[in-house]
């Protein structure tokens, strides 16, 4: 009887050893370069793709529905929209690294993924100046520190040039409404990422005194603030929701490429430069 109990107990040690070894293996894997990456938002997918380069792109094995740049990502398995990804689809891809954003993805979904043992890196870009830091952080996660440092330094240099250019060109910044929603009208207020983008491009939001990041003013309130120009950004996957600017009467309107502007990624500097060029005609 006693012998039988010992024999049974004897099984425990090899099992523990195997379990321990697999756990060690798991922690070693956690620290190694990831080869199955899932990006939960288009901005992190673009930054990761920018860092990985053409050869490294096969390491991205899944993306959110909106990720469409570079073209090769269009063929990757989708895991649902960034604002509510399908967690089972994410885990089903067996990722060794999931990339999420602080502002776009739901924090409870990130927590849920972590609770089932998935390694998740959350990239925060609350300010434009955070973008180079996001590159460095992702560079560390992907094992591409040197590439990330090079690209981050280039971004910082470009940002400095853009700011200098805006200061040089304008004595008084044009008064701007940056419109991101149509029904109801949603504009950029005095805080947040897009308010800063506007300021770097050399514009001043007429709603800069509003403490909300994205206030919803009435049409009358927009007209009452007498903007020099209304910049219109379509949030709806490129579909034109505006009525060609006619709804704002004599106030000139300017269309802005939403994908570049709303995704804090490699296209952001291009978007700010375009915005700067567009606003140049309205400078006082």
């Amino acid at each position: 009887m006693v012998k039988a109990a010992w024999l049974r107990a004897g099984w425990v040690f090899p099992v523990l050893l195997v379990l321990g070894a697999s756990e060690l293996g798991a922690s070693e894997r956690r620290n190694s370069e990831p080869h199955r990456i899932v990006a939960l938002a288009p901005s992190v997918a673009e930054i990761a793709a920018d860092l990985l380069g053409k050869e490294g792109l096969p390491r991205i094995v899944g993306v959110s529905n909106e990720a469409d740049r570079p073209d090769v990502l269009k063929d990757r398995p989708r895991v649902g929209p960034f604002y509510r990804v399908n967690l089972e689809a994410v885990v089903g891809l067996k990722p060794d690294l999931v990339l999420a954003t602080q502002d776009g993805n739901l924090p409870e979904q990130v927590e849920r993924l972590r609770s089932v043992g998935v390694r998740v890196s959350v990239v925060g870009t609350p300010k434009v100046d955070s973008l180079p830091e996001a590159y460095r952080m992702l560079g560390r996660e992907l094992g591409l520190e040197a590439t990330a440092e090079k690209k981050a330094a280039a971004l910082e240099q470009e940002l400095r040039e853009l700011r200098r250019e805006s200061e040089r060109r304008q004595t008084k910044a044009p008064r701007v409404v940056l419109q991101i929603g149509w029904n109801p009208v949603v504009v950029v207020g005095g805080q947040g990422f897009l308010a800063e983008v506007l300021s770097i491009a050399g514009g001043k939001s007429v709603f800069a005194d509003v403490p909300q990041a994205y206030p919803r003013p009435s049409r009358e309130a927009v007209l009452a603030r007498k903007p020099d120009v209304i910049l219109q950004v379509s949030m709806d996957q490129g579909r034109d929701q505006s009525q060609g600017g006619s709804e704002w009467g004599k106030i000139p309107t300017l269309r802005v490429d939403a994908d570049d502007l709303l995704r804090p990624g490699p296209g952001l500097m291009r978007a700010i430069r375009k915005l700067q060029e567009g606003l140049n005609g309205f400078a006082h």
Partner: protein
Amino acid sequence: MALRTDRKNWLLACTFLLIALGLGLGVGPTDHPDWALIREFRLPRTLLALGVGAGLAVAGTALQALFSNPLCEPYTLGISSGAALGAVLLSGTTFALHWGGLAIPGFAGALGFAALLLGVSYRTGSRGGALLLSGVMLSLVGSSLVALWMAIADPSGVQSAVFWLMGDLSRARLEGAALTLVLVAAVGLALMVQSRKLDALLLGEEAAQSLGVDPNSLRRQVVFYVSILVGACVSAAGMIGFVGLVVPHFVRRFSGSLHARLIPLSAVWGALVLLIADVVARKIVAPSELPAGVVTALVGAPCFIWILAGRSGREGRAG
């Protein structure tokens, strides 16, 4: 004869439930899921759908009897608005992130509104009409406060709450789902104990009194039980419409109006209806997901009209 019909009804319900269970565990965005994937995502979701569907159907059955009103549903009394208010106020906060999501503030909001309603019922003497109207008013206040919050709150907090408000089973966790099932089963049993009194109330207040039933006391008890049911269901899965309204009517068509039969059969049909709705919600636009509440509303409304048309047709022919 009645026993044979009963057995047939149960056999049918259980067969469908087994099929729905198979679908609940078998359908998802991954073609060959391993056990870990099923345990972490599909099993909690399936259990939660069973618990919430059963809870809403039982709550609807009890309220329709209590107020002798076929339009009553679990959300009529405003308790769900309390749950919604509690949940949206704390959505996006650190508390909601680390303390069971929106379930705890949701349940607290439901109990707060239930306490208000019961307080009003003591003042008004628990008369059916007054209680029902108080509930409807409370519901309006709650939903207006939710709308106010959504207009002024930070968009990142709103985003999480919007899906929850439409009815969302995707955030299910095993412990929460098991707790919801246990709570629904316990309250369902407590309502079963009251089934003869609910039958008596269907005959009218005077007839019920002559049979020894105190309608006011019964109303308070049932409202209390329903509050717990609605609080548990809404805080776990948000606002899932139509299950609590349509399922009791559907079950009444073949099981009759005796609550000893109606309550358990409604629970089983409610569970399987919500589970199938969730499977459809998972699959129809995969890998995106529809909120389950959207599917139940889209399918529930035509079903309800069909039931009403069937009933009117029979009554017309009888007349």
